[in-house]
């Protein structure tokens, strides 16, 4: 039985086991039908031309973890941004860990999807938002069909959330191979402000496949800053489907830092449903070995006077492969749109590959849209400059790669996140420069 059949046949058992009365029951049933029809994407799909899921779909994944596993904070502390006070919504093998979490209902809700999907007090929010921004493709539908656990964050209006919220999904490797389908819903009220950090981390080398869906709704003038730290083990793969729906004058940013994992696919979609919206999509990718990272972005400008900024930097060593597919759609009504996109890459080896493809579909006539893509090697004269000051080749390379990707970090608003990313970059590049990059 292949993975698709296994998932489809498991669905009834899953649906019978939990909350059959919930309003999402019908949504889930429709979603499994879509998945049954479309299945997993293949390289025949234009959007998946450069990313093949074949090898990772061959594993015999356990779809429901059999038992709960516990972790001690001291064992997983390095994966937290632990030097700041934060709300924490933590999962172990797909199950909520109350031991590691620090949720809240004090003024805001930062808690569990499983509660939100079943408890009456959340019903209105679920009815209004759940699965309203997510697309109906095969992978997202698969997640919707099995949507059960994840983070549920609801910020009422006029609320600046002082502490960031960390969402971490751990997998323990107690199952030989594990498939996870986390589902996050984030609803941010008018004038409110929230910062979220998300991470997926497997603790062993067992194969893990995560098919995650996150829906973010930003109301008028809301500010949402979202940081994705992707530095997973070599046998962990992640398909991240994120949908951001923005109302007028809201500012949303998603930073994606991809340093680890076997295969990572980021489907990041922004929808601008209002005027004077600002959307930022930034990313740094530094990979090697046979790692693969694919950024598939969409910014849909629907109304006038909005901006979008995309800046993705990639450094590819060894046999690694990267994909950047950035689509910008400007509707006929979306006059005075400013849309910027830039994708710059450095290839460190002859065997590394990057496929970069900007796609602009512009139907308005009074807009500023720019896109640029570069693929190059490290600047030899800059290398000589650094080495002539006594800085060895490896450290000099690291400094130049840091200089290359550094500007992406300028827009990171949490200093501790910036420091952590710098440390991860230094570790990834194998250097200790005697100062924090």
């Amino acid at each position: 039985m292949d993975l698709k059949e296994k998932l489809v046949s498991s669905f009834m058992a899953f649906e019978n086991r939990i909350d059959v009365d919930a309003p999402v029951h019908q949504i889930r049933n429709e979603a499994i039908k879509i998945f049954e029809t479309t299945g997993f994407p293949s390289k025949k799909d234009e959007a998946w031309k450069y990313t093949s899921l074949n090898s990772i779909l061959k594993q015999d994944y356990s779809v429901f973890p059999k038992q709960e596993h516990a972790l001690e904070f001291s064992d997983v502390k390095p994966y937290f941004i632990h030097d700041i006070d934060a709300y924490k919504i933590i999962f172990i093998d797909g199950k909520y860990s109350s031991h590691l979490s620090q949720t809240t209902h004090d003024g805001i809700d930062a808690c569990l999807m499983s509660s939100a999907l079943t408890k009456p007090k959340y019903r209105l929010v679920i009815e209004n938002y759940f699965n309203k921004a997510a697309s109906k493709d095969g992978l997202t539908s698969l997640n919707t069909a099995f949507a059960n656990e994840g983070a549920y964050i609801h910020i009422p209006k006029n609320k600046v959330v002082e502490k960031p919220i960390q969402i971490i999904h751990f997998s323990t490797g107690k199952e030989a191979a594990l498939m996870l389908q986390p589902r996050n819903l984030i609803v941010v009220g008018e004038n409110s402000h929230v910062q979220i950090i998300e991470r997926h981390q497997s603790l062993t080398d067992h194969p893990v496949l995560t098919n995650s869906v996150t829906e973010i709704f930003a109301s008028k003038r809301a500010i949402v800053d979202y940081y994705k730290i992707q530095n997973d083990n070599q046998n962990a793969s992640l398909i991240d489907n994120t949908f951001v729906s923005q109302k007028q004058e809201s500012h949303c940013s998603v930073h994606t830092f991809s340093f680890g994992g076997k295969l990572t696919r980021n489907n990041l979609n922004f929808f601008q449903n209002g005027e004077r919206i600002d959307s930022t999509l930034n990313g740094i990718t530094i990979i090697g070995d046979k790692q693969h990272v694919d950024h598939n972005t969409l910014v849909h400008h629907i109304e006038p006077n909005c901006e979008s900024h995309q800046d993705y930097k990639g450094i590819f060593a060894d046999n690694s492969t990267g994909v950047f597919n950035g689509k910008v759609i400007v509707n006929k009504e979306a006059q005075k749109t400013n849309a910027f996109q830039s994708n710059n890459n450095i290839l460190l080896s002859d065997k590394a590959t990057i496929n970069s493809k900007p796609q602009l579909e512009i139907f308005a006539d009074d807009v500023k849209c720019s896109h640029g893509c570069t693929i190059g090697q490290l600047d030899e004269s800059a290398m000589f400059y650094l080495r002539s000051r006594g800085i060895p080749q490896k450290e000099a390379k690291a400094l130049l790669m840091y200089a290359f990707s550094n500007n992406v970090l300028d827009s990171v608003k949490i200093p501790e996140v910036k420091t952590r990313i710098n440390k991860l970059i230094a570790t990834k590049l194998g250097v200790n420069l005697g100062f924090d990059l």
Partner: protein
Amino acid sequence: MLKINNLHASVEDKAILKGINLEVKPGEVHAIMGPNGSGKSTLSSVIAGKEEYEVTDGEIFFDQENIEELSAEERAHKGIFLSFQYPVEIPGVSVTNFMKTAINETRKAKGLEDMPANEMLKLIREKSELLEIDRKFLSRSLNEGFSGGEKKRNEIFQMAMLEPKLAILDETDSGLDIDALRIVANGVNKLKSKDNAVVVITHYQRLLDYIVPDFVHVLYNGRIVKSGGKELAHELEEKGYDWIKEEINS
């Protein structure tokens, strides 16, 4: 200190240096002058160890050691410093952090511990005062958005920090106004001692009014065709290079 014998070097199979002989002793200041394309920058890059240049014949000795096989960083660790004509911009790395890395990597290569932070700060303060460099300047990204003069001053600041035995100044005077020229020259002169040496590469005599050379060499078509005292620089300033070209060609 530096001894160059019959040096031939080429880049992409094009011969640029065609038999250079030069000896620089501790305490000396040498000026290398010459028209555009004569090989001045190539010579400085070859001494500093730029890999694109291939040494096809001859030898370079530094402190009696043949340095041909040494990398650029190893030459730096031995005390060779090149002040660049076009310093490279490194965004996101401050001047201070860059110098810390350079100094501590050099110390590491010599088997020394990292320089203690307070000592480093003191050194930075001392040397930045010498070059009349503002403190704010030190926290800026290396060379990013620096004016031509700031870049050159920063090069000499790095030289002051690293205290090389042999400093090669490649067209350090280009792009400098008279005040910056004076500051830079003053810095170089204060760093001069009987144990170190300076090679000044320049088009013009102007810088040599401030950094007075013991020897002046004329580089033309990949060879040193004439050597003399500081008066040779004045002669070149007055008469240009044509008379030398004529001398060679006749």
